[in-house]
């Protein structure tokens, strides 16, 4: 399949957004949904075709000297600022873009299908706003696809904002509930704040490089420039500001933008609240695709990040801390979606850390043929995580749909009632816990290898977090499906959901089992050179062992109803409460924004605005009005008056000018 078909992959969701958004209300609700699913199916097939052609084809100049190069399918000029500074809009395919095409379309298709069942009540009637929902899903898919195939930073930024907007719209889908309104505002503001830094980073970078493009045919793009020591980018490396090079500043700012979308500490606070949206949306946006946009961004600029050790260290520390921090909170949450949200934060932090540790230089290059192991592991984990986390969320959605609650204590003992969901959830848990041969094992093992090679401390830390992951996931699993007998508290017994919801679970579960065998090391590397990896049995064995300990602990504490969790919680009540309250981060933000910023800064500015700025315009209006009233007699309507006015005007003009010029 020609790579130029990528344009169709992107165009179909956009057309669907316009079509469903504009004419959806005129059609039946179910019809819109079915049209959406069919369009998404076509998109998915095309995306697979394009991605597989890219990975396994050899025409169109993808492979040069055994290295898989990025292919710019097309890249027309959009805005021309100067001869060199041009914003283009185009499509570029490279290993990570092709991989993301597969991830996005797969999960999106599953979610489209699943929503057909989920967005209906128990009598099969579609909810209010069904058409709007499908239109927004299409908008999101379009924005995300546009982001990954972007040829330049500016395009990435535009689509970065667009995924933010569609995420905002979907979180607030139930716009009549206050919680959803608060959540979407919070998500939008926090990510926008981060995007401000991203924009500054882009501007710094483009100031030095005079281009936004990553690669370009005629002039060097940002990344292409790295090979050329004479390039203006070198100047960015040497110009310093406050002790750091301009390039380091730019890259750090860009990372902050990515950290906002990818919910790195301390910008993670929006993600748990974003769970107010419909659960399929959480699966698509807040687990599988949009939240990894930050990781994708760092990966996209990875050839630059490896040059700046300082920035990589920051990312490394932030990532490792976030992984642990979110895992700790996930251990005590009682709301199933929030627990999964924190699990997502933790897993994304794994990917970030993995990217950051891969800058370690030296002998690594000889061992692994390049410092791209962490990069490869990160992208591989991104791929597998998207699949099993989407699976977990969709399972959670099925459970919530059955029992009408997000809370653990309304569930318990569901295994008997919902066997398919139970097994699918179990597969998801095994995958995320890193038990072979499930998908998570393979990708997490590569991450741990990369971390150990950065330093033994990083390795032990990440292994520990991996153990916690196993613990909290199985805690959730046991609490939902076992613990004690289910008490039916709704008018009907919980049961497996209709086929539209079950089929995606089965497909994703199947993918979660086999995805680990995808030869990612051969395909998804930072410079296109295949890596030769082999399983490091010491590290893999250790991590499996730790994971098993975590699972065992969870089994002991949560499989059958007992008072062990309660006693454990009581023994360190303070820590437990702190973790349950998410270490008071939201309260801290409340304090800073309301007490410090609103009271201390905004209020005086508001006063100035009212008194001085508004005052000026009010005065202008008042003066205008009065003068206008005063001179209304000038327009007398009599022609003699007009001519007098004319003549006096001419003469005054001559006299006054004469006075001005001559005197």
């Amino acid at each position: 399949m020609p790579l130029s078909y990528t344009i169709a992959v992107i165009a179909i969701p956009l057309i669907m957004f316009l079509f469903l958004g504009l004419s959806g209300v005129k059609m039946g609700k179910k019809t819109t949904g079915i049209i959406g699913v069919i369009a998404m199916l076509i998109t998915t097939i095309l995306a697979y075709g394009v991605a597989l052609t890219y990975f396994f084809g050899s025409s169109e100049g993808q492979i040069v000297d055994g290295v898989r190069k990025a292919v710019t399918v097309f890249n027309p000029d959009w805005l021309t600022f100067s001869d060199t500074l041009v914003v283009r809009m185009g499509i570029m395919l490279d290993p990570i873009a092709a991989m993301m095409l597969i991830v996005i379309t797969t999960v999106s298709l599953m979610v489209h299908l699943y929503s057909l069942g989920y967005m209906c009540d128990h009598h099969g009637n579609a909810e209010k706003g069904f058409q709007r929902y499908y239109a927004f899903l299409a908008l999101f898919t379009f924005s995300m696809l546009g982001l990954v195939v972007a040829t330049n930073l500016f395009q990435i930024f535009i689509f970065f904002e667009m995924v933010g907007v569609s995420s905002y719209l979907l979180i607030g889908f139930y716009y009549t509930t206050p919680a959803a309104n608060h959540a979407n505002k919070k998500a939008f503001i926090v990510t926008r704040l981060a995007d401000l830094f991203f924009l500054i980073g882009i501007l710094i970078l483009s100031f030095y490089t005079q281009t936004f493009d990553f690669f370009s045919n005629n002039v060097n793009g940002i990344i292409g420039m790295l090979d050329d020591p004479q390039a203006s980018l070198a100047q960015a490396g040497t110009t310093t500001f406050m002790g750091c090079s301009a390039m380091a500043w730019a890259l750090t700012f860009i990372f902050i933008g990515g950290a906002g979308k990818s919910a790195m500490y301390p910008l993670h606070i929006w993600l748990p609240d974003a769970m107010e949206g419909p659960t399929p949306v959480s699966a698509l946006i807040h687990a599988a695709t949009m939240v990894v946009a930050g990781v994708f961004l760092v990966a996209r600029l990875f050839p630059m990040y490896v040059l700046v050790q300082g920035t990589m260290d920051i990312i490394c520390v932030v990532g490792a801390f976030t992984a642990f921090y979110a895992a700790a909170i996930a251990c005590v949450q009682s709301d199933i979606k929030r627990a999964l949200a924190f699990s997502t934060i933790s897993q994304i932090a794994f990917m970030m850390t993995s990217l950051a540790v891969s800058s370690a230089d030296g002998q690594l290059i000889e061992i692994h043929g390049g410092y791209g192991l962490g990069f490869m592991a990160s992208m591989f984990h991104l791929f597998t995580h998207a699949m099993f986390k989407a699976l977990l969320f969709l399972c959670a959605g099925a459970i919530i749909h059955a029992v009408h609650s997000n809370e653990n204590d309304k569930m318990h003992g569901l295994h008997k009632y919902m066997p398919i969901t139970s097994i699918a959830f179990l597969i998801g848990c095994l995958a995320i816990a890193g038990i072979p041969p499930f998908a998570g094992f393979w990708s997490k093992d590569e991450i741990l290898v990369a971390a150990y090679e950065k330093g033994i401390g990083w390795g032990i830390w990440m292994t520990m977090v991996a153990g916690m992951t196993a613990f909290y996931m199985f805690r959730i699993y046991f609490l939902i499906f076992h613990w004690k007998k289910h008490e039916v508290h709704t008018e009907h017994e919980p049961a497996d959901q209709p086929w539209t919801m079950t089929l995606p679970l089965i497909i994703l579960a199947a993918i979660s089992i086999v995805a680990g065998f995808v030869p990612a090391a051969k395909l998804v590397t930072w410079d296109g050179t295949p890596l030769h990896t082999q399983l490091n049995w010491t590290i893999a064995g250790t991590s499996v062992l730790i994971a098993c300990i975590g699972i065992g602990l969870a089994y002991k504490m949560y499989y059958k109803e007992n008072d062990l969790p309660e006693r454990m919680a009581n023994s360190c009540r303070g820590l437990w409460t702190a973790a349950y309250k998410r270490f008071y981060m939201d309260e801290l933000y409340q304090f800073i924004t309301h007490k410090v910023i609103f009271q201390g800064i905004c209020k005086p500015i508001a006063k100035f605005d009212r008194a001085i700025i508004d005052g000026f315009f009010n005065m202008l209006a008042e003066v205008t009005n009065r003068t206008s009233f005063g001179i209304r007699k000038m327009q007398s309507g009599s022609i003699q008056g007009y001519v007098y006015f004319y003549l006096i005007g001419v003469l005054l003009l001559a006299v006054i000018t004469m006075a001005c010029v001559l005197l």
Partner: protein
Amino acid sequence: MDYSQFLMMPQEIGLLIVFLLVFIYDTFMPARAQRFLPIFTTILFAIYTAFSFIPCQMGELFGGMMETNPATWVMKCILNIGVFIVFLQAIKWTNEDFVSVRRGEFYELILLTLFGMFLMISSRHFLLFVIGLETASLPIAALTAFEKRHYESHEAAAKYIFTAIFSSAIFMLGISFVYGMSGSLYFNDIANALSLISSKSILLFVAVAFVIAGVGFKLSLVPFHQWTADVYQGAPTAVTSYLSVISKGAAAFAFLIILVQVFGSAYHQVWEWMLYAIIILTITIGNLFAIRQHNLKRFLAFSSISQAGYIMLGVIAASTVGMASMIYYILVYIFSNLAAFGVIAAIERQTGKVTMDDYNGLFKTNPWMAFTMMLAMFSLGGIPPFAGFFSKFFIFVGAASTGSVAIYVLVFIALVNTIISLYYYLLVVKAMFIRQDECAIPYIDSHWTEELGMTISVMGIIAVGIASNVYTFMSQISDSVIHIFHLI
């Protein structure tokens, strides 16, 4: 005589041919074919407009009395587009009972005045200029009096003809002074002769003031503006829209040429100060009166006075940048004002309503008309991303690029006036969209020609703003006529 020089003025020749064809049709065609005169004229004019875009050989004609260059070419093309839209909007009106007997005259007079304006734009000799000016002025009085059954129409025409004659007299007097001092009527010769006069004679100040007054009358600059409101209100709407955009655009361009080419040398400073005062007065007084108007045609009259002040900012810049921004401004202004007049004309034709209160709740009954009007108001007010924002922006940049403190003050005053103007432009929008009315204007079934005219205007408002290369093109055109500015 060398007839080949006629090839350098194909736009004028083409216009004359159109005029003659229309005249022949009007005179010799049978009565039942007269019904198709408007559509015949419009199609003929459309063909001519399309052909007028073809660049041709340009240069001096008639021994230097006339000059065609890229700038005059582009200016005439813009005017052609405007007249085409005016014709589209007038078709239905000229077929109405009271007008239909004289519809041929409407088209012939408009074509004739357009020819006069072409002469004004291209002339490099005061004699030719005056011929152009008068050709473009006098028939307007007849056009203004077109609605014979309306008392206001007559009054407006009387006021117009008297002030026009008076201002022509003043203008001629000014020219005779200039001739007395320089001994020539050729623009270039006058400029050369004046640059040799070292002392700044009082006579010259008076002469410059008189010339400015003469052309300022056509542009309705304050204090030569007072006919405007009465004439705009009294004249038929098709004529008003023609007067407010086409006539104004042509005069503004001619004004720039005269000031820069004739008085460009030592007297730049003189007219700069005069223009400075005139601009401030024009913008401010236009705004102040516009605030109080309830009749929309009167309202647009004062709005167009204030817009003329903005156009003059391009003249005071006296540079290629100023010229480019001025041409661009006129183009945008033509689209915006014609969109507004298109709506007003369509509504007036069917209901006879023209006051702002009549437009209450228009959005509910006629959403597309309200939308068109809103875009026109936004564009006139300079709200991004519509073309009016960019035209204001460029004209401010053009003026400010001269870099003197006085001009900065002028631009600031103009900016403050923009805020004031927003108020009254938005009043119209408020009436249409926010105010409710039980007896709002019912749904208007406008003719397809009117709709086409409005559509072209709206497309212009949107497209000219977005396509940044329009302005780039204008500046290339202006750079190619840099010889006009050699005296500055």
